[in-house]
């Protein structure tokens, strides 16, 4: 299950498993984002293409408004999937 919330610093905190069953839940949060925001992956164990699709669609929407998602604290496995998908070229990763 995906845990997702916007914390008091306005960071989007992700935790657990971001798979195809969690897309709707994720959009409920990501659709609220209207300006640049940090997404914290520290507690996220797993992401599949369904999760990547949510991030890509949100990034496309924000870039159209000259805003962006910045990704933080990706573990090595999640960094790898981002690299394989070429997402390291379209997201700033800190």
């Amino acid at each position, binding site marked *: 299950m995906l845990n997702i919330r916007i914390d008091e610093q306005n960071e989007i905190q992700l935790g657990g498993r971001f798979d*195809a*069953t969690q897309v709707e839940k994720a959009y409920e949060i990501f659709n609220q984002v209207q300006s640049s925001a940090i997404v914290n992956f520290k507690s996220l164990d797993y992401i599949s293409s369904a999760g990547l699709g949510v991030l890509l669609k949100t990034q496309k929407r924000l870039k159209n408004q000259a805003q962006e998602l910045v990704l933080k604290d990706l573990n090595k496995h999640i960094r790898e999937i981002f690299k394989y998908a070429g997402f390291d070229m379209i997201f700033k990763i800190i």
Partner: protein
Amino acid sequence: MKKYFKKNLKSLDRIFKFLDDFDRQVSLGNDTLRPIKISTEEVFTNFIKYNRDTENDILIELTREGASIIIRITDFDAEPFDPLSIPPYNESAKIEDRPVGGIGIHLLKKYMDDIRYEYTNKNSIITLIKHSGEHSAEHPHRRAK
């Protein structure tokens, strides 16, 4: 090990548990198990997406042959769906040119050492092969007849 799963997204939790049980039997290790989970999810969700008209359960069979893990996923009474026929995903494209779809099959090709597709007796069968303990991004995938 083999098990049938209802053809809907709610089965994913049970599929992950099934893969964890297999891991406990054969000790895959996280570097092998994680790509197998991602790839199995991709095939399963594509079978749901491309064959909505049938409600037959999907069969997942897991075997280990030496250093190879073989994941065979069967969609019964289905229309053909060959993941290797999907146009390649351009991982270097600019964001405005990136489609949201197609990433899953791209990842499948990156993570698996071999992908085979068969369509026989109206059954769509995708076989994934992963060599345990190594990454497969440099390995070409092949299509079997």
